[in-house]
């Protein structure tokens, strides 16, 4: 059983890489110019962060309000809210699901006329930590919360 799991996991990963490569060939590069492919196809959170922000060194901050359910009955639609409006000079917010095959979920870059707040719904394959990384004043800050994903709706 374990071997089958591993096999599936590995074949998933290579499959994704092939699809990504194909997509790269078919789509005019101008469309993807903005999209940080390296960060979004990174398989570890450290890789994703270093490609995105150039650093993996984030300090915990109580000023980031990360709202996510303690128990998600459906991992495919987990509501996540990141509110960093208490912090000054918020440049960007990234949301990562630590154990997803591709951990980086989304990244928002803010201009001066925006507030460091974002609310969305993300997919999660299993119970894991959701991490919000906030870049403010050139430094990285983080907040995390564990979300239990229950399958089958028994809510336990």
């Amino acid at each position, binding site marked *: 059983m374990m071997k089958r799991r591993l096999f599936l996991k590995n074949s998933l990963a290579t*499959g994704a890489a092939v699809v990504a490569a194909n997509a790269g060939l078919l789509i005019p590069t101008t469309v*993807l110019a903005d999209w940080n492919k390296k960060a979004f196809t990174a398989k570890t959170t450290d890789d994703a962060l270093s490609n995105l922000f150039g650093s993996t060194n984030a300090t915990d901050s109580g000023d980031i309000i990360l709202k996510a359910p303690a128990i998600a009955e459906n991992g495919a639609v987990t509501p996540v809210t990141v509110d960093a409006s208490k912090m000054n000079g918020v440049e960007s917010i990234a949301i990562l699901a630590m154990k997803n095959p591709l951990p980086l979920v989304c990244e928002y870059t803010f201009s001066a006329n925006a507030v460091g707040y974002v609310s969305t719904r993300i997919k999660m394959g299993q119970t894991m930590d959701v991490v919000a990384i906030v870049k403010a004043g050139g430094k990285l800050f983080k907040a995390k919360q564990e979300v239990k994903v229950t399958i089958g709706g028994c809510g336990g």
Partner: protein
Amino acid sequence: MTIKIRMRGKSANGIAEVKALIKHPMESGVRMDKKTGKPFPAKFIDTVQIMVNGTKAIDAQWSGAVSANPYLAVKVKANAGDKVTIDLTDNTGEKGTGSITLK
């Protein structure tokens, strides 16, 4: 085909919360088709741009791990009567635009 966006927005004290519901499958390219043993081809929104009166406010990049039919809420500095626009592009080049005049 264009991507459909439904938007709502209301301004209070100079800050507007804009909510959007987007109709999109958000296929990550990782999910397997059990019948063929191959992954479903990736089709997800990868770039999102939010503008206030034509000025860029928020640039977002998404992966296929954003839920299908994505919900998005952001806050921008804008007053009633200002126009907020959302522009989307998915990884196949399909585009969508939605705009709203704030209340």
